[in-house]
């Protein structure tokens, strides 16, 4: 990166954040990816397109999402004041819809008739199926067979919304395999299909494009905290699967170096076991799904299956911009285990009357730890990336309850 005094300059024209990112895709997809980039560059600064996006975000998604002072959670921690950025209150119940609105409007502009998407927790699948219903486009969602099993409510929601849910049995039947299958479908249907990627990963321009559509989270949070507290927060915390809710919250604060920023990876059974999803903490740089980034892989460069109780974090990679921010030392990445997330899920539900997504529960668990170490006049903002209704079956199972 040429401008050493900013962390916000990436990516360069080759889609690189430092050494990360790029366009590692099959030749068949190259013309299409260049076309997506061209259209994205056109709309990025087009006031008419932006107004269209803002209109849907306000009237359909329900933005801005509140920045809520979690008083009882704060009291419980006994340290920093904890605010929740309430992405769980968005239409469809997670932050994923922010980028879906932007991307579907782009796909329409490109004249595409059919939308494909991958999904882990089903939140991105539901958000995609939702915008496809809204705009009358054909929708196919690829979902790992294991994830279909643990996210039944979302599978049914997608079907109700008119999407076809295609089970993927290859590999461990989770998010990575769903993404492979979506890429295979795309190669076969380039002429009429747009691949609506759900996170800040994949080939350029997806990581930057999804970040641009998600950065509204951080822009709002910044304005809201100035309004409510008259100053910037001391710390931001967000969970990281591919990294879109985290990039969305973090990006507008990257150059405010007094703000400590923490991404939370899923530690599954522990990063010292071979069952986790912490690609930064436990992986090394490699190339998968169109970009260079930190990956869980063996000595031969074969990708290792990730594990997390949370389907939305169960991915062996991470968006390339996070890899860059990790190497640059601007963002710290911690990790939270399955059982810690389950405990935070229950804690938040009881203390605040908010049922958080299992993904967001990872951020909450880390926020709880960190807030405890902070003083009462400090401020911590945690991204409540989604609601947890979809996870009640998984939680019941973890608690040994039969529904």
């Amino acid at each position: 990166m040429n401008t050493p005094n900013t962390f916000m300059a990436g990516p360069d024209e080759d889609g690189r954040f430092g050494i990360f990112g790029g366009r590692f895709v099959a030749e068949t997809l190259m013309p299409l990816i260049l076309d997506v980039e061209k259209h994205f560059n056109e709309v990025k600064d087009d006031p008419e397109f932006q107004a269209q996006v803002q209109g849907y975000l306000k009237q359909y998604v329900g933005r801005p999402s509140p920045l809520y002072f979690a008083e009882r959670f704060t009291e419980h921690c006994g340290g920093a004041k904890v605010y929740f950025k309430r992405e769980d209150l968005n239409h469809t119940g997670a932050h994923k819809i922010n980028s879906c609105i932007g991307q579907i409007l782009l796909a329409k502009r490109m004249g595409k008739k059919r939308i494909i998407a991958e999904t882990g927790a089903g939140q991105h699948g539901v958000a995609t199926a939702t915008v496809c219903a809204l705009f009358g486009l054909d929708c196919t969602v690829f979902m790992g067979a294991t994830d279909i099993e643990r996210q039944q409510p979302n599978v049914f929601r997608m079907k109700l919304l008119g999407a076809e849910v295609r089970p993927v049995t290859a590999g461990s039947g989770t998010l990575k395999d769903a993404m492979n299958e979506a890429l295979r479908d795309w190669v076969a249907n380039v002429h009429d299909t747009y691949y609506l990627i759900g996170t800040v990963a994949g080939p350029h321009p997806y990581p930057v494009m999804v970040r641009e559509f998600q950065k509204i989270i951080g822009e709002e949070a910044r304005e809201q905290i100035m309004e409510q507290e008259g100053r910037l927060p001391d710390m931001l915390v967000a969970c990281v699967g591919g990294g879109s809710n985290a990039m969305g919250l973090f990006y507008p604060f990257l150059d405010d170096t007094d703000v400590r920023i923490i991404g939370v990876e899923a530690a599954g059974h522990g990063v010292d076991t071979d069952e986790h999803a912490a690609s930064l903490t436990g992986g090394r740089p490699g190339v998968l799904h169109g970009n260079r980034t930190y990956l869980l892989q063996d000595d031969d460069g074969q990708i290792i299956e990730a594990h997390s109780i949370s389907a939305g974090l169960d991915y062996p990679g991470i968006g390339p911009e996070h890899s860059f921010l990790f190497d640059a030392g601007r963002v710290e990445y911690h990790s939270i285990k399955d059982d810690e997330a389950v405990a935070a899920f229950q804690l938040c539900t009881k203390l605040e009357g908010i049922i958080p997504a299992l993904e967001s529960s990872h951020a909450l668990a880390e926020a709880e730890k960190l807030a405890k170490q902070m003083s009462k006049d400090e401020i911590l903002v945690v991204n409540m990336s989604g609601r947890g209704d979809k996870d009640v079956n998984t939680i019941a199972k973890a608690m040994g309850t039969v529904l």
Partner: protein
Amino acid sequence: MSQTRLKTRFDQLKAEGRSALVTFITAGDPDLATSKKLLMGMPGAGADVIELGMPFSDPMADGPAIQLGSQRALAAGMNLKNVLAMVREFRQADNDTPIVLMGYFNPIYSYGVDGFLKDAAQAGVDGFIIVDLPPEEEREFAIPAQKAGLDFIYLCTPTADDARLQLIADRASGFIYYVSITGVTGTASAVTSDVDAAVKRIRQHSDLPVAIGFGINTPDQAKTMAGLSDAAVVGSAIVKRIADNLDENGKAKAGLSEAVLSYVQELADGVRAAKA
């Protein structure tokens, strides 16, 4: 251009007035010993160029047949070092048949590009087809490979316009691989008239031999496509013959290699009948 094994082979076939049969198998599929036997038997069965797959956990551009082959190979303990060892052993018996390694970039990146190129050249590898390295990423591997005297074979697809064809032609070496379907390997059959037009279009941009692949599933199609180009590439159809000869535990049945190689012979007969 120096006289590489690939150039020698294509020149020689041109003199004979026929096209090449390029066969694909994944190294280590279904197990190391059987795979070695298949590799050793390929030239005798009529393969003119061999594509040897480097197995990868996430073969995004491959259909079910090659995905499964890749999984079998990994389960059998195949890795990049062993792939090179297989090539080294093959070279002791055959110093003429070109071997092109095909696969995805991550295992190579993990091995280290410079070390891999050195070891591959020493083992007797002639070139590479790396599916997830388009021209936009040429600095990663294509340029270093060509600097090391090895061919980097670019894929060229029906989605390419003339500008893109030129971009590819400017960088290609060895041969140009025309992906005759928009899709992953082994999932559809190429349409003759489309391929004919595409090959003619490619020839306006490049003097390199043009091979056709991804959409050839029978000896008959191999014959047709060989008639339109300089080489017919068959992969999934061969890998399916491997799968057909596994027992219920996924182990090679007796006679697997004979069955697979006799199928290769059928393909070779088809290709040789194309331009007699």
